[in-house]
């Protein structure tokens, strides 16, 4: 099929990225509703489940190569220090130590957008890399770390955004603590005018905590050279980003680097970029001629590989008596840690509700702590918590039901870009969710129950991008036995990528899922985008469909040649090409492929372009039912009802599971997860899974899910929108609003711990 090259603009996490992409010239008709499909939309079991339940799935931590050695990293114990001297003599003498890498012998490799080096003498947070030891065993490497003598000159430090913004505070870098020296601002309409038109103005301040991704598989890389070719097995969400960063760091062509990731133990955004350890493994491996495996431990996971930044948010809303929102303003401050990242969280406020006058200022502030990274719906989770609280408060102020207030201010179009949505079924989601939770049960007067344990119901809306887009490619190989190999450079994080790829190919070619073998997670395969931003399914699934549709075309063409019939007279169905006119004239895939000299047929598919002049977003709402014990302050989440517009459901089994996961992670964020950093020492106190609390099976509430969408008719020929991030966005906000409905007191900081409840109730 003909292709063309276009300029493609996609939303990736927090930014629009423009790139050239090859797209098909002709586009396919969207599929009909799922009940007219045979395989897509059905609860197919994960095709990689066998490996995962049998223990044979090989994660990066499970890869062993002959002669491989182990690397461990020495990290700064200080929040701010200069590395004055480093003596590795004793460590080098330890039997089994093969190499020690530090600023003394490592080339200068730029890191963190040129603000630092792979080994920098300025150590700006507890956990900054000082040296790396490779040894024949992990234990010897750890022993050697203790033998390295380091002289630090400790410096004053700052740990919070508010402190860092003061002019007299220590500067994390020479150039000041506010990134770019100013906030990211956005203005629509005239907020002053808007507030003047309001009958009521509400101003509130919210705070959210730092939380840590803590995926189960630690960050790790295994590097091995053969001559000038480097292979890296990496626990990553972004094989191509890792490849390109490694190539640039080592100043070698990308074509010499191959990155492989077949299985990974979670990422949640923390594994979207190459780690320093990956570069170290490659450097040491080249030097000593052995495969090098470097992993971090759980403490390092909690110090040095990313987190969700905290936030301090000041919101102001103006409303008329009839419920019209006249103005919204938002000022946010978030600490990105010691190196540049984004802590902005205004987007939901700019877009969810109809409002002509909006102003936002987002400050990303440097502090002497571990750098933040994208974490499942970066910005939106913290922003939605605050926005949805003040929306409820505004509704109460004018005596309006919170759901009615949201429906009153429903935005039919994207107000930032002033374009229509490719689809938006949020209204249906509101009504469905309200029905499931039985919204009418909520306390008309918050906190009015007279019992010790008070129940409450709350809701919150979410918006996310999730439209994906080109470039994304896939290759299909049809074998003689009518089985298929799919090759695509995508990643499965546990999200079900393997399975939906097989389903889409099986749907088009009308053959069983079992006949499709999916190979992904390898930069030798056609390019696919990183797996983040809820863009994998909407980007990759259409490329698979294109490759499979082309295969159908090839089969018809081949059958025409074999049967001496015109192509127009032939049709494909369930592995057979047959004549429309004479039913006995037919030929199977196996026969066709056997008659070709190469015994296989190959096609390449590409993701079509996104429609011009539209925005694609996933929408959803969650309703929470909670009980608050007014004696202990403990919050119990009884039930979450989640209703979503995510376009087409590719696989309800993996979809529901992913939504469960987002909700339960959101519950942890709402009620107990928190990275604690001691302001006096600048050190993290929660460095293990005992002190850093993540939800257990006992914390999981009852969850009821409704998908209100059939498919997005315009975004792609598949019509699926992303769900990974939408699942977590509104949970904390819905729980916060439910707690307010239960006790009649607003907890404006996360996590909502018992002490905050007790303080709110009795002081």
């Amino acid at each position, binding site marked *: 099929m003909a292709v063309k090259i276009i300029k493609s603009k996609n939303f990736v996490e927090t930014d629009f990225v423009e790139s050239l992409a090859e797209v098909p010239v002709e586009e396919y008709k969207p599929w009909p509703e799922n009940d007219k499909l045979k395989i897509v939309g059905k609860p197919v079991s994960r095709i990689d*489940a*066998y490996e995962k*339940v*049998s223990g044979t799935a090989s*994660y990066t*931590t499970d890869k062993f190569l002959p002669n491989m050695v182990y690397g461990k990293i020495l990290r700064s114990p200080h929040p701010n220090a200069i590395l004055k001297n480093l003596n590795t003599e004793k460590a080098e003498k330890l039997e089994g130590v093969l190499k020690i890498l530090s600023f003394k012998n490592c080339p200068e490799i730029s890191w963190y957008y040129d603000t630092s080096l792979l080994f920098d003498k300025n150590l700006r947070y507890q956990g900054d890399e000082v040296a790396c030891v490779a040894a024949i065993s992990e234990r010897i490497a750890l022993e050697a770390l203790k033998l390295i003598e380091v002289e630090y000159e400790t410096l004053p430090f700052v740990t919070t955004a508010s402190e860092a913004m003061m002019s007299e505070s220590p500067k994390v870098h020479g150039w000041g603590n506010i990134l770019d020296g100013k906030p990211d601002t956005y203005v629509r309409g005239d907020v002053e005018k808007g507030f003047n038109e309001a009958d009521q103005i509400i101003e509130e301040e919210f705070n959210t905590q730092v939380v840590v991704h803590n995926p189960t598989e630690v960050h790790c890389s295994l590097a091995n050279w053969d001559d000038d070719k480097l292979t890296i097995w990496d626990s990553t969400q972004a094989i191509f980003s890792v490849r390109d960063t490694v190539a640039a760091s080592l100043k070698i062509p990308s074509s010499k680097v191959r990155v492989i990731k077949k299985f990974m133990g979670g990422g949640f955004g923390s594994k979207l970029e190459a780690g320093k350890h990956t570069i170290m493994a490659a450097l040491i491996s080249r030097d000593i001629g052995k495969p090098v495996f470097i992993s971090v431990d759980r403490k390092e996971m909690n110090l040095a590989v990313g987190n969700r930044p905290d936030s301090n948010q000041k919101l102001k809303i103006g409303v008329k008596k009839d419920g019209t929102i006249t103005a919204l303003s938002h000022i946010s401050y978030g600490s990105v840690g010691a190196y540049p990242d984004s802590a902005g969280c205004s987007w939901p406020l700019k877009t969810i509700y109809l409002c002509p006058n909006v102003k936002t200022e987002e400050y990303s502030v440097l502090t002497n702590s571990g750098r933040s990274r994208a974490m499942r719906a970066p910005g939106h989770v913290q922003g939605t918590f605050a926005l949805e609280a003040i929306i409820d408060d505004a509704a109460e102020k004018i005596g309006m039901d919170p759901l009615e207030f949201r429906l009153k201010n429903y935005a039919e179009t994207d107000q930032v870009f002033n374009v229509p949505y490719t689809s938006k079924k949020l209204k249906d989601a509101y009504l469905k969710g309200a029905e499931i939770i039985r919204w009418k049960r909520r306390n008309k007067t918050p906190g009015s129950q007279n019992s010790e344990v008070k129940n409450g119901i709350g809701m919150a809306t979410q918006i996310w991008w999730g439209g994906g887009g080109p470039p994304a490619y896939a290759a299909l190989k049809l074998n003689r036995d009518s089985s298929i190999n799919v090759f695509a450079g995508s990643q499965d994080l546990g999200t079900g990528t393997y399975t939906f790829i097989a389903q889409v190919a099986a749907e088009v070619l009308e053959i069983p899922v079992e006949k499709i073998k999916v190979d992904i997670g390898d930069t030798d395969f056609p390019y696919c985008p990183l797996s983040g931003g809820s863009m994998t399914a909407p980007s990759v699934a259409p490329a698979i469909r294109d490759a499979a549709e082309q295969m159908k075309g090839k089969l018809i063409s081949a059958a025409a040649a074999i049967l001496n019939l015109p192509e127009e007279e032939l049709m494909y169905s369930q592995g057979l090409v047959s004549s429309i006119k004479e039913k006995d004239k037919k030929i199977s895939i196996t026969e066709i492929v056997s008659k070709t000299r190469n015994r296989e047929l190959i096609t390449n598919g590409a993701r079509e372009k996104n429609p011009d002049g539209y925005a694609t977003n996933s929408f959803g709402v969650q309703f929470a039912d909670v009980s608050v014990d007014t004696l202990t302050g403990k919050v119990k989440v009884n039930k979450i009802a989640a209703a979503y517009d995510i376009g087409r459901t590719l696989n309800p089994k*993996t979809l529901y*599971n992913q939504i469960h996961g987002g909700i339960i992670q959101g519950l942890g964020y709402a009620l107990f997860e928190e990275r604690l950093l001691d302001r006096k020492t600048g050190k993290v106190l929660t460095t293990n899974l*005992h002190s850093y609390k993540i939800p257990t099976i*006992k914390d999981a509430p009852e969850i009821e899910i409704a998908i209100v969408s059939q498919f997005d008719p315009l975004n792609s020929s598949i019509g699926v929108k992303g769900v990974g991030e939408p699942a977590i966005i509104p949970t904390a906000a819905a729980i916060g609003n439910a707690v307010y409905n239960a006790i009649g007191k607003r907890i404006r900081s996360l996590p909502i711990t018992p002490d905050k409840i007790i303080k709110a109730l009795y002081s």
Partner: protein
Amino acid sequence: MNDKSSPRKFSRRKFVQGVSTTIIGSYVLTPGVSKISEKLEAETKEIASGKKPLNLIVNKVRYELMISPETTLAEVLRNELKLTGTKLICNHGECGGCTVLLNGEAIYSCQMLALDAGEKEVTTIEGLLTGEELHPIQKAFVEHDGLQCGYCTPGQIIAAQAILLKNSQPSKEEILTGMSGNLCRCAAYPNILKSVLAAAGYLTEGTNR
């Protein structure tokens, strides 16, 4: 497999324990003219380096190993035996990723020295399969999608097996308590519960969403 039924007359372990000092002595004194076999020489070096013999029965197979005393059971399973289904997530006994059965009881293998598991029956996730055939609990986790990334899954399944070995009809509360030591960051918990309920025979086909 036959080790138990036909005990060897000459156990390497006993031999090594009994004569190690002498051997080391003779090795050191007369290295050039030593009559010690190469095999014994290798073992002697290991003893000199502080390694200890370990007799480990994993998934019904007996292994004779020489290990450093500080080695944990999890390390032996993963690094020596390459049974990598057992995962190290926290390495501190906080997450359950390394759960294995020791004489039928669930334990955190990162918290046990391998030497303490000597002569005991260890079952790992790999040991639940019969050939390529999955165990019914494993099948339940596939059918009910009791996993996402799959990294904590071996530990979850072994924990479930431990519950069901003790009580084939556990209550929902007993399942939740029994599984609460196994963290899943993807939070596939509702489906994990469903998988264990199904393995206990409480769920029937068609409830697989």
